[in-house]
């Protein structure tokens, strides 16, 4: 797989292209793009059969190792690639360590090992065990093992440990990769750690740049511990670190960030030069019964930035989630029906909301790329920000009315 930077905007938002992908050599994918966040290879609530109804374009499945650890033995015996194992031969696979939609438990550190928390409890991975699994999975893309357990509150001691561990993993994993015939075509993403300490970030990058020729992209790790809280991280909290890391990385390499970032922050991160995100935010929304309905194009007849289908006001509302949206949910199902499904706890409610949310985010990214090409990303940012602010004001008003 190959990454080429195509178009750099003044603020350094950029258009890139992924090509020469082993799973399908003919496809080209433009960045900034959004990976489809999955658990064990499935977007939560969405089978691959339904995914084909959402998007006909090639997509990359982000598969957290933590969600497939229970297949460790099966994968050893299995001949095929991970995308085939999870039932979607034709999609591109990308293995990450943790699930960005779930809060990752902190602590439990052991030198040169990383704890992951599976449904059957804690499992320790070192480079050898991790790369043996990756080798059997034969993914199109994967991240090297990392100890990214830092956030804005982390102590210097934790940051130092995280840097030491991850630098060691980087070396060990790359030496494994070099020897593995299974992984010769895999696209390697190296995590960059160092918490919120700019010096540590700088030092870490220095340490790993010697391996740069074996690496195709970098993941800005160690900013948060995943889960729903990421949506509410103020951009200015991460801005300096992100900019520092990007400044110190080679421009020709893919830049990845993971987590449930809000749409406004996604645009801000794109403006910093981030190329790859994931759809874990769609899971967070769907779990709280919310559909994203901010308008992306002029023909979206948006009523609000986001709507919550649990609210009784939708019981007799037979309009689609978003008038103008072309997804299969909006094409055939009403807010009232989805409200009914949620009230009676039927699975299809989450399926329908998720279909729309994923479709909406994919459309949002296509708009981001278009706006970079047209040099009007700021207009998109202001448009989304206005809708978001309006939504917040409305929320406060509603609260006040309730209190009255």
């Amino acid at each position: 797989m190959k990454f080429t930077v195509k178009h750099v905007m003044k603020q350094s938002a950029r258009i890139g292209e992924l090509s020469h992908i082993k799973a399908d050599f003919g496809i080209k994918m433009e960045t900034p793009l959004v990976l489809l966040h999955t658990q064990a290879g499935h977007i939560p609530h969405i089978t691959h059969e339904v995914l084909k109804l959402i998007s006909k374009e090639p997509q990359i499945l982000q598969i957290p190792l933590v969600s497939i650890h229970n297949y460790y033995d099966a994968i050893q015996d299995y001949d095929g690639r991970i995308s085939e194992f999870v039932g979607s031969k034709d999609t591109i696979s990308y293995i990450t360590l943790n699930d960005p939609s779930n809060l990752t438990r902190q602590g439990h550190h052991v030198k040169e090992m990383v704890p992951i928390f599976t449904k059957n409890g804690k499992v320790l991975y070192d480079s050898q065990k991790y790369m043996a699994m990756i080798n059997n999975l034969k993914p199109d893309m994967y991240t090297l093992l990392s100890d990214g357990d830092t956030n804005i509150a982390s102590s210097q001691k934790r940051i130092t440990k995280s840097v030491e561990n991850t630098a060691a993993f980087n070396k060990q994993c790359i030496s494994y990769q070099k020897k593995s015939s299974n992984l010769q075509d895999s696209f390697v993403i190296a995590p960059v750690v160092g918490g919120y300490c700019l010096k540590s970030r700088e030092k870490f990058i220095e340490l790993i740049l010697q391996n740069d020729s074996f690496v195709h992209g970098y993941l800005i790790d160690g900013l948060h511990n995943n889960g729903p809280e990421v949506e509410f991280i103020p951009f200015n909290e991460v801005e300096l670190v992100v900019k520092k890391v990007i400044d110190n990385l080679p421009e020709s390499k893919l830049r990845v960030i993971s987590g449930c970032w809000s749409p406004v922050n996604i645009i801000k991160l794109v403006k910093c030069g981030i190329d790859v995100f994931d759809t874990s935010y769609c899971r967070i929304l769907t779990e709280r019964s919310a559909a994203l309905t901010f308008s992306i194009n002029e023909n979206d007849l948006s009523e609000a930035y986001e709507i919550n289908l649990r609210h009784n006001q939708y019981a007799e509302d037979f309009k689609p989630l978003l008038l103008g949206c072309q997804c299969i949910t909006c094409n055939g199902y009403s807010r009232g029906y989805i409200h009914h499904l949620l009230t009676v706890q039927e699975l299809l409610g989450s399926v329908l909301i998720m279909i729309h949310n994923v479709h909406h985010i994919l459309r949002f990214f296509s708009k981001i790329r278009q706006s970079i090409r047209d040099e009007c990303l700021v207009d998109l940012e202001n448009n989304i920000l206005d809708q978001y602010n309006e939504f917040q004001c409305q929320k406060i008003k509603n609260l006040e009315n309730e209190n009255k």
Partner: protein
Amino acid sequence: MNNIKSPLIFEIIGKCETSKARVGRMTLPHGPVDTPVFMPVGTQGTLKGMLPEQLKAMNLQIMLANTYHLGTRPGPKVLKKAGGLHKFMNWDGNLLTDSGGFQMVSLLKLAEITEEGVKFQSLNEHKNEVMLTPEHSIEIQNAIGADIIMQLDDVVSTTVPDKARIEESVHRTTRWLDRCLQAHQNPDIQSIFPIVQGTLFEDLRRISASEHIKRDVNGFAIGGLSGGESKDDFWKIVNLCTDLLPKNKPVYLMGVGFAVDLVICSALGVDMFDCVFPTRTARFGCALLMNGQINLRKKQYALDFNPIDSDCTCSTCKNYTRAYLHGIVTELPVACHLLTEHNLAFQLRLMKTIRENILNGTFKEFVKKFMEDLYPKKDYPSWITDSLIAVNITL
């Protein structure tokens, strides 16, 4: 001139030479239904996470929804405003609704049956007493708008020994049938099926059937079975009812849907079936096979890279191994969707095979082979051998 188009046209297009099995084609307001047919149950106006788009792709022609549940939530008012359940749930195939009576009696301990209807304590916060009358049941079913609807019947469990009570239920069911027919607002787009009652008493079944066939209706249901009676009793009543009911109308056996029951009751001349089992069992990791079922939760499947069923062409069997499914069953909701898809495909394939064998004149051979696969030691339960002998098939 009567220019009201019938909401149900039933043609018999093939008959088994040996047994009472037959292949029919029902034409309903939302398209054709090939019989014998299995109807999956979408209780709340949805089928276990499956999109109607997927159901269409599987060639599903009709599904069932429950009046009691839909009448409670979202309620007839919302359904009416939505333009009926078809529109509400985006399903343009056919629908059948039950009367709600059975659910009330089985779900609600406090239900009490009087001549007026079924009295029960409401599930809402006020806990007030509510009465479901035949008129009210039809009113809700009119709002739902299913293509086939059921009369409210006086349900008595097959395990109740009190013959006087059962006799009362038979006559009351006929009186309620007349009230249902009277109250029906959409006879040109919805067909009411009477329900033959009488539990395990043949004389009472005769009375019930003879009364109901006097009414101008498009099909009949056999009720009050599948409630814990012995299989030896069960098949005799089914066999009797298909004898008593007119041959030119579809016969629906309520609540029956296990593979072996579908094969036998098709041989006995039943045209329509429904059962929650194939879809409900998917949630617990259970997948159906022609020779039984497997539970994918079991450790033995952890390294099994075969599909659930290599003869099955459903998208689950085409794309997934048992090993993969083993790792996600009861963990991820998608596992339930994937198994539901297979189990539904299984039921539809079984019915299609039954129909094809009847049309090809090979039904007898098919039944024998099916039972042999199911009981390789030929230790057939007596009800299977007896019921098949009754329709001239000897195992």
